[in-house]
């Protein structure tokens, strides 16, 4: 199976680019914004101002390229925990994301105009749900689509199979994006499966499967755009395999030196999705270092303002533990709530 690619490893276009100059600039800004978030989030984590954080460094293009095809108040995003870049690009406010990674309830619910379900922790369970969300759009007469992200390890789960099969049988408008980042914590992809390409698994469901260079934003964006267009037209789901690499640890608590070599990581750093996109823009004469500096300053300003906003969120109260269990508090929750109000 061929891998869809538009940029070479240095960012030079290999063929005609199916995006406008304006889109290329929008895409680069979104990539930079994601990288900036990730870097600053790790700093906050080291300062003890975030909880355990799963970084996505190296995977920005694979997430941003898909999210750029979606409309937050119309389409749906069901991400797993490593998809802060997708969430951010989709429309989740940075302050909400910070609160979310602080495990603060104030960050758990997306704003009313952002159809993102809180990051999923169990692996692949959101795929059957995303198939249901997607099918519901058709039943409700909308042309909205759902996008769901997992990693290579997630394809081993039963819900990967059940979710893809349901999506296929019901012709649901769904994008299943697998970020094949080489590692499921410490287990390499070749110990996870025998097929060389995850996209091949789509054949088992009678749906299109595409492998794309996940570090090439132009490629991811154009593949996702086509899949979204198909889904909106009622032509069903697509499985997208984005080949990428998690250059960062699994989480802020992980030590990758226990399972992989630095050489491997170094090789992938040379294919960095942000550098490639920046070089593409420079090559096309669309970008300058002055613009870069301006962008970085704006991103830092945006991030600092978001941190300030997050810092102002009021502390969660102990009795909120038993709120939102049911729409109306039942006797057992009410008893616990009264106790916590009184004693906590």
């Amino acid at each position, binding site marked *: 199976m061929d891998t869809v690619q538009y940029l070479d490893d240095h960012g030079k276009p290999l063929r005609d680019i199916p995006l406008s100059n304006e889109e290329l600039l929008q895409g680069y800004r979104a990539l930079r914004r994601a990288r900036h978030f990730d870097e600053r989030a790790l700093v906050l984590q080291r300062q003890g101002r975030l909880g355990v954080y799963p970084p996505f460094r190296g995977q920005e293009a694979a997430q941003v390229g898909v999210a750029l095809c979606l409309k937050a108040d119309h389409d749906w995003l069901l991400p797993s925990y490593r998809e802060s870049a997708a969430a951010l690009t989709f429309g989740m406010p940075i302050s909400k994301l910070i609160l979310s990674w602080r495990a603060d309830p104030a960050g*758990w*619910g997306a704003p009313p105009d952002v159809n993102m379900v809180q990051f999923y922790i169990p692996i692949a369970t959101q795929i*059957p749900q995303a198939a*249901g*969300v997607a099918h*519901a759009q058709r039943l409700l007469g909308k042309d909205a689509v759902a996008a769901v992200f997992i990693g290579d390890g997630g394809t081993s789960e039963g819900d990967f199979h*059940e979710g893809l099969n349901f999506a296929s049988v019901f012709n649901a408008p769904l994008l299943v994006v697998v970020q094949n980042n080489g590692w499921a914590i410490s287990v390499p992809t070749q110990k996870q499966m025998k097929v060389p390409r995850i996209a091949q698994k789509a054949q088992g469901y009678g749906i299109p499967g595409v492998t794309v260079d996940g570090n090439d934003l132009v490629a991811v964006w154009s593949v996702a755009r086509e899949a979204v267009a198909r889904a909106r037209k009622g032509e069903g789901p697509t499985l997208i395999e984005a080949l990428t690499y998690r250059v960062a640890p699994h989480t802020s608590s992980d030590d990758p030196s226990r399972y992989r070599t630095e050489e491997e990581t170094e090789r992938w750093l040379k294919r960095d999705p942000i550098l490639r996109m920046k070089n593409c823009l420079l090559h096309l004469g669309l970008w300058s270092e002055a613009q870069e500096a301006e962008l970085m300053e704006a991103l830092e300003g945006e991030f600092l303002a978001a941190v300030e906003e997050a810092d102002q969120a009021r502390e969660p109260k102990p009795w909120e533990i038993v709120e*939102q269990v*049911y*729409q109306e508090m039942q006797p057992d929750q009410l008893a616990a709530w009264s106790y916590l109000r009184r004693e906590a």
Partner: protein
Amino acid sequence: MIAERETRVLNNVQAINEALDLALAQDPRVVVFGEDVGRMGGVFRASDGLQQKYGEQRVFDTPLAESGIVGFGIGLAMAGLRPVAEIQFAGFLYPALDQILSHLGRMRHRTRGRFTVPMVIRAPYGGGVKTPEQHADSPEAVLCHVPGVKVVIPASPERAKGLLLSAIEDPDPVFFLEAIKLYRGVKGEVPEGYYTLPLGKARVVREGQAASLFCYGGMVEVCQKAAEVAAREGVELEVVDLETLVPLDTETIFASVQKTGRAVVVYEAMRTGGFGAEIAARIAEEALDYLQAPIVRVAGWDAPYPPFSAVENYYRPDAKRLLEAVRKVLTH
């Protein structure tokens, strides 16, 4: 008033079918689905005729995958529909436990109410009808141990219809377990038309002074039978049908214990860790002073439910075992 309505004699499956029919007619968001639910109308015919009436978009068959069914339903519900899923047998729910434990009851909590799952999962459960392995399981305790879900188990056609309509209207996920033994085993007068019965309320189905029998689902008729036998010997037993296990109506339970001073808890699931243990614990915690004898449980044995065989009847609690327990609490 429901009491003033015309009634018809229906069995439990017919009452459930009627409730599904009325829900589909009343609320365009309701969809009914599961294995063999559409064209065939379900293995027990609970959705008989509904696909023909409401079309394949509203009543449909799914692939044979329980985690898929529950996960798909969670998605439908989050997107604004009112899914009513059928799991063919409660003993087939186990592949869906990840969806149930990790997501079904947590979605409201983990999104602070941004997304909710107003979904009903119906499943036939329980023994007494000579089914193959796994078909007679009673996994209600597992479901009651999941935060954020409600668990309802009706014991008569009139109750089944009104409770199912309440469950479908409910803003939170509801498990609706239907005793297979009662599907065609009981008939009763069922009010015509749409009506709901409140979730979270137990009901005293037989009044008595000597001892209280706490039961639900398929065990209610067994308790009533035992109470009739005891009455012939002059012992008046009170039978309390819990109907909703979560949220549990402890008020009715404690009032009955206060009245009789003796409690027998009856369930057909395996005894250890069963929901009856929760009832016993609640009574011990809150109503100990009323008790004149230790609480006794009558339940399935700590063994897998035996598939159809000559010994099946020895697994499920019956009137004989119930009366032994009653004797024990009365002679303490």
